[in-house]
């Protein structure tokens, strides 16, 4: 019993560290949408700094600790936010994953390289991180131990637990009790709505990264006396805390925290009582990995954008589409020819060997082109596929099978592994899938490859050279020729895949999984096909790796190799075979070039890692960059021309909002801004002038002009797809204008971001419900009404909400939600209230209530823009009515002039003919 309690207690200590790390992971993911694979690396850097400050510079721990945690942590977080995370939040998912994986490689190398540099250039004698240089913790040295009732605890454990508990309490207080925390949680809950309610989401992201890095730094400093300054150990720490975060569904910090604690205990219990697992080497090491995998499968069905039709990772345009075919093929035809000529004339053995190694990597990288470039899935298990195939071939050869058959078996083994990895891919998407592949890769390393009979222990398998009858692969030239042929073959295969029906199916699945399903494309089959193909190519590469090396062992291609591969190939361009070839060459020639300047291995890691970071800027790789720039210039020119054309066409629409002399015969709008009074101060609250806006390359608003005056309700009507909601979003600053202006009380606010427009008095109640479902009623109000007095006023006005102030807004009825969304406006009337379909899905009685509220606001002098698809209800309220059709306001006038005929013609588009 004492033993069990001992395991639980000391498990809780390590669990607390997992919990801190996991909380940081969850916090940053939930706030910014970027899953930071480099979270462990951040902890490593903080621990390294702590080590250098204490052991190197001799600082006392009570200074070094706070400096490493409270100064370096937030600083690092902020720097990372500025340099990459900010850009990443709007980048495609692949770029997000790869960039943080690049950071995982680069950050520790940067830290270690910096120490080398300080020692080498500035003559300092900071201690290097050698195995012997054990790092100390925050506690005293030597460690003191105490015994209570047969359970021993030491000072390091006690300090770790205390600090973790205090940090957790501080984190809880910050998130639950401060406006900063409220803003962050609002941004987590509904990012766009948070912007509309005045939260500067970019700032909230920066704060989240600072906070997340600080948590990683605390965890790093606490755990370093136990695991040492070993970046690999911190990667293990990341997996364990990622497991905790996954159990918290990457959203709930309290659950993540609890899961972290539980993992610490569980790990101890397995180590203490899991003797049954002794026979399977590695299975106990792999406990966190197994749990991570299980957690991913059970808890994290991808619920993102199930109904969305926007591609998560839209393929870039083919920038070279206008070039003739021969011109596009030219570089890839000429360069092998030049290579071959060089090789058989003046090439020396060493450089030919380097090229052959590069081509081998290129072949392996082709597997990324299939799964990531075409399939849009990031797979970190490629190194495991390669090793698996090579070991299988080795095993088969040792049993006396002929090479051909062994090769087939090896590739088949990799393909089967591909299916196994693809199975989770069927249910998971994006980073969750990536985590799953990583878990499987680690499982292979830690368990499968540890089976003595499979990997032949540490000896590995001998791999004889492939004989082609007249030449064998001991000659690097044979390898180059063989590899060129294979890459060409794989290239053809990939091209055919892209152009075939299955290629289109793949693209469909990638862009819009649900839509693809609806039209009968099997996402399952498509994803499996891709994984199998990719695994087979990686397997072939692995076999050749072993053959060229003469030997394959279980440790030749560890899982972490896959990180570097991915970073390199994605930077060069993962969508085409050309990028893979370039990546392969990059992989071998960069170390060669670096070797001329420096002996430091860190420089290479930094460079490969920073390449991944560069992705934040250029998500489609080096290869397409130049072409992309040309394309952009062309686009900009087109955009300008389009805008000019629109402006030329829309001389009239400026008058449109005023009494429409050009339109209705009897149109005299009750318009507070008199047509003749331009010199008077404008009595208009909101004005859109020639607003052109849209999403990506799709233009939705084609020159909208609209005026809303104080104390007036403008009803914006129109059929589905006319651009009403986009008008609202453009007015509120969520959708930026391409051309045109937005004025608020006469002042140009076109350049102001949404949160500042909210501050200036624009209040948009968006389509659906404008509440944060995850926050309580009280918190929803507090975001807009920070002082308790005004919240009390809101409860006075809406007693129904007062009873439910501690309930999550998501649990309210539709009507209550709508009331909650509008409540802040009641207490602090905005200058302009924009309501997008406020009556949608509400009972008539509630709709009346909402409209009464609008009426009250109007009386108070607010300007209201109310969008409705159905005209009936809002007409009773409106002073002015504007019709939208195909991105323009086609008619506007006083409500009195609106009759059934006008409505009908407006909806049917007849008004356009009238113009």
């Amino acid at each position: 019993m004492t033993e069990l309690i001992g395991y639980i207690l000391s498990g809780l200590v390590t669990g607390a560290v997992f919990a801190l790390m996991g909380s940081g992971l969850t916090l940053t993911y939930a706030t910014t949408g970027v899953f930071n694979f480099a979270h462990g690396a951040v902890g490593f850097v903080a621990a390294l700094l702590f080590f250098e400050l204490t052991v190197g510079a001799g600082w006392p721990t009570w200074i070094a600790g706070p400096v490493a945690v409270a100064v370096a942590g937030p600083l690092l977080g902020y720097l990372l936010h500025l340099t990459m995370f900010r850009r990443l939040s709007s980048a495609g998912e692949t770029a997000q994953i790869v960039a943080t994986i690049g950071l995982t490689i680069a950050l520790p190398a940067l830290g270690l390289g910096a120490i080398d540099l300080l020692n080498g250039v500035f003559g300092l004698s900071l201690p290097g991180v050698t195995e012997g240089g054990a790092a100390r913790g925050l506690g005293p040295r030597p460690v003191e131990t105490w015994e209570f009732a047969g359970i021993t605890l030491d000072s390091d454990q006690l300090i770790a637990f205390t600090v973790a508990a205090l940090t957790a309490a501080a984190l809880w207080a910050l998130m639950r009790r401060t406006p900063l925390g409220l803003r962050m949680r609002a941004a987590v809950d509904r990012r766009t709505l948070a912007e509309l309610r005045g939260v500067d989401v970019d700032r909230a992201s920066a704060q989240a990264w600072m906070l997340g890095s600080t948590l990683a730094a605390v965890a790093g400093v606490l755990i370093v006396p136990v695991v040492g300054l070993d970046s690999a150990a911190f990667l293990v720490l990341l997996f364990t805390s990622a497991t905790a975060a996954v159990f918290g569904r990457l959203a709930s910090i309290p659950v993540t925290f609890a899961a972290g604690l539980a993992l610490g205990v569980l790990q101890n219990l397995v180590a203490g009582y899991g003797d049954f697992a002794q026979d399977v080497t590695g299975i106990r090491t792999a406990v966190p990995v197994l749990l991570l995998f299980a957690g991913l499968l059970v808890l994290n069905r991808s619920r993102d954008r199930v109904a969305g039709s926007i591609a998560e990772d839209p393929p870039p345009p083919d920038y070279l589409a206008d070039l003739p075919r021969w011109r596009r093929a030219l570089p890839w035809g000429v360069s092998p020819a030049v290579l071959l000529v060089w090789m058989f004339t003046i090439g020396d053995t060493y450089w030919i060997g380097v090229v052959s190694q590069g081509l081998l990597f290129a072949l392996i990288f082709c597997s990324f082109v299939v799964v990531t470039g075409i399939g849009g899935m990031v797979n970190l298990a490629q190194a495991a596929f390669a090793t698996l195939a090579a070991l299988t071939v080795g095993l088969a050869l040792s049993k006396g099978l002929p090479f051909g058959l062994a090769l087939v078996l090896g590739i088949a083994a990799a393909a089967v592994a591909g299916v196994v990895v693809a199975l989770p891919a069927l249910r998971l998407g994006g980073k969750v899938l990536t985590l799953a592949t990583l878990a499987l890769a680690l499982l292979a390393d830690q368990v499968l490859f540890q089976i003595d009979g499979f990997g032949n222990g540490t000896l590995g398998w001998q791999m004889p050279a492939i004989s082609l009858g007249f030449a064998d692969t001991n000659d690097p030239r044979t390898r180059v020729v063989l590899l060129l042929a294979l890459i060409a073959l794989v290239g053809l295969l990939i091209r055919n895949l892209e152009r075939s029906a299955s290629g289109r199916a793949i693209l469909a699945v990638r862009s819009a999984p649900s839509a693809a399903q609806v039209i009968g494309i099997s996402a399952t089959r498509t994803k499996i096909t891709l994984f199998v193909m990719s695994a087979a190519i990686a397997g072939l590469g692995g076999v050749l790796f072993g053959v060229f090396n003469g030997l394959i062992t279980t440790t030749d291609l560890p899982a972490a190799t896959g990180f570097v591969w991915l970073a390199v190939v994605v930077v060069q361009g993962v969508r085409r075979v050309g990028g893979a070839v370039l990546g392969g060459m990059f992989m071998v020639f960069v170390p060669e070039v670096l070797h001329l300047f420096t002996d430091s291995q860190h420089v290479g890691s930094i460079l490969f890692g920073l390449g991944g970071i560069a992705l934040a800027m250029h998500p489609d790789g080096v290869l397409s960059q130049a072409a992309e720039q040309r394309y952009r210039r062309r686009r900009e020119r087109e955009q300008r021309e389009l805008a000019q054309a629109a402006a030329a066409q829309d001389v009239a629409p400026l008058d449109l909002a005023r009494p429409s002399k050009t339109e209705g015969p009897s149109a005299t709008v009750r318009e507070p801004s008199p047509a003749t009074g331009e010199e008077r101060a404008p009595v208009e609250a909101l004005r859109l002038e020639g607003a052109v806006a849209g999403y990506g390359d799709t233009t939705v608003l084609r020159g909208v002009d609209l005026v809303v005056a104080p104390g007036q309700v403008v009803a914006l009507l129109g059929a589905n797809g006319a651009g009403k909601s986009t008008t609202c979003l453009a007015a509120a600053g969520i959708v930026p204008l391409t051309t045109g202006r937005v004025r608020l009380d006469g002042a140009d606010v076109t350049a102001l971001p949404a949160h500042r427009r909210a501050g200036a008095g624009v209040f948009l109640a968006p389509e659906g419900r404008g509440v944060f479902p995850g926050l309580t009623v009280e918190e929803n109000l507090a975001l807009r009404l920070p002082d308790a007095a005004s919240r009390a006023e809101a409860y006075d006005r809406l007693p129904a909400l007062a009873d439910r102030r501690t309930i999550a807004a998501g649990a309210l009825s539709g009507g209550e939600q709508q009331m909650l969304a509008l409540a802040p406006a009641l207490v602090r009337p905005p200058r302009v209230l924009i309501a997008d379909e406020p009556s949608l899905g509400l009972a008539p009685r509630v709709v009346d209530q909402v409209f009464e509220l609008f009426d009250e606001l109007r009386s108070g002098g607010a300007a209201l823009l109310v969008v409705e698809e159905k005209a009936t209800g809002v007409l009773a309220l409106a002073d002015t009515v504007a019709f939208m059709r195909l991105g323009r306001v086609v008619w506007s006038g006083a409500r009195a002039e609106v009759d059934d005929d006008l409505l009908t013609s407006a909806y049917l588009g007849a008004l356009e003919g009238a113009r």
Partner: protein
Amino acid sequence: MPSFRLRSGMFFKSAAGIGLAALLAACATETASSGGSGSQGVTDKTVKVAGIVTETSAIGYSSAEAELGARARFERANAEGGVHGRTVEFLGAEDDAMTSATGVTAARRLVDKEDVFAVVPVSAPAFGGAEYLDQQKVPWFGWMTNPAWCGLSTAFGFNGCLTPQRGEKIPSWWAAQLGAELGGTDGSVWVQSTDTSSSKIGAEMISRSFEASGFELVGLSSSVPAAAPPQDWLPYVNKVMESDGGGPPDVVVSVMSGTKHNGGFYTALKKAGYKGAITDATSYDPKVMADPQSVAALEGVYAAPQLEPFESDIPEIVQMKADLRKAGGGDLVFSQHMATGYWAADVFLKMLEKTGKDLTRENFLRAADGFSYENPGFGRVAYPQNKTQPTGCGALVRIKGGGFELARHLECFDNVG
């Protein structure tokens, strides 16, 4: 050379689309010319060598100082006029970064680009270039820590093959030396390793060797995670403390490497009240002494180096220390890696001497057959039998008061099994 024109012509055509068959056929015309005369890196006055070591690694392991050790030995040899009139041109050592692929590249660079005659020293636990060096018939000398290298025709470990394959004889010196130090080999012993197959193999071998020497094996555990030390040692230590009929064993042998694992394990053992002997193979490392926590953890531990320790006062060690100081500066802190580099170079020089004036790789490898050499600094070595067996020599160093104390001089014992 008319054949060149023929070849390039063919390749232009093939690039234009002739295809795979033409490529391979053309390639076949070239394969005959590979291979060298076997005297690369050798002139009348010099012989060129360079080493491969693990300078940096993700886990913090570094054997970089082996380079200094080899340099110190070569500098003395050169000062004494070289071997058969040839001085050693030592290019330094490449870093394999503990990555197999980097090791292959390094080996290829030294052989194909730098044209070295031999690779000395090799001290890299994950060296991937072994097969390549063997294929190219390039001799290499170093610390044979990986069973895969044992038995390769061109690989020479200065203290033999450290990890013999199953069925081969195993060393007995560790148990014998420890028994002599403790005053008898009748105690109980617990062997602890990590959860990987290589660590398991090592632990099994050590267990058998201790049993063969008379110790009673009360436990063999390979449960500690290898990737990173456990964040909590309690469950592992509890098992040790109850292994000998409910009490602790007399001896704990750790086959785990590095202070991160061992330091944590020993600290936890002591915290649990363990008072018996602790021994491992890797704690003879002055860097460990930089950290007071490690010093406390390692206090009283017997480290078992396979070399005569620096603390010894035999003439060979005095000479080595003088050589190292000359090459590395007066305030040098000696480490085991320096000694491995030094003795690897020493054995290489001895073999150069035996080969004679006519130095080619072929002659050199011929001289290696039937080579035997004794030196109190590392014991004795004879090839070919030490290509598959360890030399069976080792010493004991006790860690005391933040320093090392010579417990048992290097001694060689017959292998058993």
